């Protein structure tokens, strides 16, 4: 190690002075408009002048401290869940072949869907021009399982074993009918791109318990047909500070690259370099006041800490054969859904706040029987194992597990209906999700759909309600976690959402 870094950091070099002098257009406008804005704000809050002491008023004068005020109030109530893991089944798994048991459909095979059920609701252009919308029952049998006697498809034999730990919501409904808006809606609370994702809201609102790992980590299964794309904005931070965006791990043997230092360069060198860089960045930050600079400093330091924390957390050396057997044959193949489930568990053990798994391939417009068989085979055992594993480690007590897709599928067949083959189109009016663990009632089903699994007939749960409930379980009042951006306060639930109290334990 050389000693040249020991030299004191020079702040008054001509180059650095340049930064201080630089007043580009953007910088100029920000600074001057802030000044004008502060005056305007002062007059706006004049109404409260009489009610408040001058001291607190001064503190609230700047926008930054208002945000701090909001964060300081969290948790709003005692949290049931300390961490969340969201198993996102991208593509829209059929509720009819999994959890929403509709025995009456068997007698209606091939009949046209009655207009009284559809009520003129829109369809996608993929099936709206079909001459007939033929009803098709689940090709798979359903059986009752557990103390709760819940009906579950024979395609999910392992999930059936843990059904008494699940809170199955059959009445989730969304507004979007196509993948991109629907998945964006689920992940960010709005169909249009640009808002902050759930995980980044959680990271922003609750911070991190473990400074050595990102508080929001994303894992994508490699062993799935990528019929619908995933894009990083689904775990993006939107308008929230950049350090809250989801950190995606690679799906494979090395989830995080470049953890090792180059040859002849050790951790102390790296630390010195980063300290030096951080000083430079601070200097820039002082001049510009751009929060992105702070985010960059934070991310560099996170990366440095991850050099030591990641190898430990991704190592499977400690895992027994029993664990691999529990998660199934894929679990030894890094990057598979099963393997990601194990990794997710290890991240949760390290108190990562929000872990999101994505498993694609549920978009069965045709060939649904075979498609579902494959999807279920890939995910059923690992998912059930995940629940069991969390439970026996005492983690299910304060971890919320969520399973679900962006919408469900239609009761009618898309394309030609055969005895052993059919497809189903997108259906946002009702579909099934489940939650398990911290704070939700185990072994219950909530909400009901009609005999066609087309409309919700009892206890509807909107996507906003789901978000509100999720935040509630984390101890956050969804109406009070806000962030001001472009002159407006934003919430994950926008201006809607109500907590589904009935499913809370």
């Amino acid at each position: 190690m050389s000693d040249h870094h020991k030299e004191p950091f020079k702040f008054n070099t001509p180059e650095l002075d340049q930064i201080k002098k630089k007043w580009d257009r953007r910088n100029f406008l920000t600074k001057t408009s802030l000044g004008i804005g502060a005056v305007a704000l002062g007059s706006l809050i004049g109404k409260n002048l009489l009610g408040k002491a001058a001291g607190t008023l001064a503190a609230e004068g700047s926008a930054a401290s208002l945000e701090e005020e909001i964060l300081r109030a969290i948790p709003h109530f005692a949290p049931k869940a300390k961490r969340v893991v969201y198993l996102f089944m991208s593509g829209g798994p059929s509720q009819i072949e999994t959890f929403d048991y509709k025995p009456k459909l068997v007698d209606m095979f091939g009949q046209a869907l009655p207009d009284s059920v559809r009520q003129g609701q829109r369809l996608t252009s993929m099936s709206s021009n079909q001459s007939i919308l033929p009803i098709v029952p689940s090709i798979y049998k359903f059986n009752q399982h557990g103390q709760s006697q819940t009906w579950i498809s024979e395609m999910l034999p392992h999930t059936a074993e843990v059904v008494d730990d699940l809170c199955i919501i059959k009445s989730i409904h969304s507004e979007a009918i196509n993948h991109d808006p629907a998945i964006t809606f689920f992940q960010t609370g709005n169909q249009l791109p640009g808002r902050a994702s759930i995980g980044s809201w959680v990271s922003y609102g609750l911070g991190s318990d473990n400074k050595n790992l990102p508080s929001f980590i994303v894992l994508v299964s490699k062993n799935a047909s990528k019929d619908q794309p995933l894009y990083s904005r689904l775990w993006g931070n939107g308008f929230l500070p950049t350090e809250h965006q989801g950190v995606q791990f690679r799906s494979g043997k090395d989830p995080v690259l470049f953890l090792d230092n180059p040859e002849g360069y050790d951790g102390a060198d790296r630390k010195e370099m980063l300290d030096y860089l951080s000083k430079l960045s601070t200097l820039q930050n002082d001049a510009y006041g751009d929060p992105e600079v702070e985010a960059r400093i934070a991310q560099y330091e996170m990366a440095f800490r991850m050099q030591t924390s990641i190898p430990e957390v991704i190592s499977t050396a400690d895992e027994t054969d029993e664990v691999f057997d529990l998660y199934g044959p894929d679990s030894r193949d890094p990057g598979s859904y099963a393997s990601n489930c194990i990794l997710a568990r290890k991240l949760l053990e390290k108190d990562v706040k929000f872990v999101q798994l994505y498993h694609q391939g549920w978009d069965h417009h045709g060939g649904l029987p075979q498609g579902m068989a494959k999807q279920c085979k890939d995910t059923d055992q690992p998912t059930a194992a995940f629940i069991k594993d969390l439970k026996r480690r005492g983690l299910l007590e304060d971890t919320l597990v969520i399973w679900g897709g962006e919408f469900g599928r239609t009761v009618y067949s898309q394309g030609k209906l055969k005895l052993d083959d059919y497809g189903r189109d997108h259906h946002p009016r009702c579909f099934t999700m489940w939650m398990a663990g911290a704070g939700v009632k185990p072994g219950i089903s909530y909400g009901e759909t009609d005999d066609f699994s087309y409309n919700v007939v009892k206890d509807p749960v909107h996507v906003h309600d789901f978000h509100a409930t999720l935040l509630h379980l984390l101890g956050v009042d969804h109406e009070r976690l806000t962030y001001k951006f472009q002159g407006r306060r934003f919430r994950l639930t926008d201006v809607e959402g109500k907590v589904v109290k009935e499913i809370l334990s």
Partner: protein
Amino acid sequence: MIIAILLFSLTELIGRFHPVLVHLPIGMLVLAAIFQLILPKQKNSSLVPAIHITLFGGMLSAIFSAISGYLLSTTDDYDASLISTHQWFGIAVAVISIGAYILNKQQNKYTKWVILLMTILVIITGHLGGSITHGSDYLTKVFSSDEIVSSNTQRKPIANVQEAVAYTEIIQPILNSKCYNCHGVNKQKGKLRLDLPDLIMKGGKDGVIIMAGKADESELIKRILLTKDNKDHMPPIEKPQLSKQEIELLHWWISTGADFTQKVKSIPQSEKIKSVLLALQSGEIIEVIKQSDIPDQAIEKADDNAIQKLKARGISVSAVSQNSNYLSINFIAVDAISEKDLNLLEPLRKQIIWLKLGNTKLSDRQMEMISSLTALTRLSLERTAITDKGIIALQKLTSLQYINLVGTKITAKGLAQLKVLNKLEKIFLYQTSITGTDWDELKKIFPKAMIDSGGYTMPLLEGDTSEVKPPTIIKK
């Protein structure tokens, strides 16, 4: 616009000074009367200028009181009839005090009679004002025996709760004790009265407060459930609060349709509410809600300095909930725990109730240092190097409800040492040195606790399949 708002706030502000200002005319005018009374005695003649001054001061303050009182009446919501009498008497006092002052200045011989009349008016006005603020039964309440009823809901036992009329025997007493003071006959804050069925359903100035069948959307319930720091929280934080059971009862009554005549037996009841209702029979309300792992009693604020020291070490410290001084501490980001780190917990021992030391290099030797954290309800020690020797230290943690020992070398014998911890509800023991018949032993030692061994064997139910079968084709 802003000026208008400012003006409005200003009138409200002046109005709020009324309760302070009124004491001045009462004191000064009565003092003037007393001076007047003792004046005839020869030696007191020096009081003449004093009468003059006190009358002047009393007059001025009476005028200001009347003005501020009028402003207050326009902004706050009080019983109109009570206000109007008080208002006219108040104005009368102000006018007569002006008269008394002038007469006194002119040495008029009727001055003392006017002062006598003024004194009587002052007393009446003061009493009326007091009745508005404290309630008209404020003075007489001392003599009545059932004084306790209005401050605390200590109801008489209901002989058979199922036969009782839900509203009159259960709901009304709650409203009576917790709401009527401000939303009753005397005062209608927010133009809301809760003492009559029609008025309850009518709501206040912000609209209806009860949506029959939808308790969670009813303003009444919403306000009650708001956190206490919210200014809309009801009852106001300084007033007696509703108990959990009372909230449950209100919630139940509204969600079942807010009927004013039905008997309890004809209203649907969940298991939870049944037990709350049953408790009304015995007169005492039994705690039916599950034991919380956050203690009920308040605790003083933790030393901020101590918290900062922990945070500086990368130890996560968070409040368990808003307005709670209890703390949750997590050592997950600390690789090598030192005695120094654990020492940092000592000043916070009253506040720490959740402690996570799992996945760290915690050793038996260090266990002694957490034995003083007697407030702990949850303790995570998973995958640490602790053994049977170390957990003896936990015997002192008598509040413990949850303990996680997954992946440690603990044996059944070691765990048996924790028998004294009779509040333990959950014990996680996956991947420990506990084997075979030990489990049955442990069940006997901890009869109340849920013991998780991690070795789940699921009974195979009929119809369970463990492999994916080729799809069966359903024929029409």
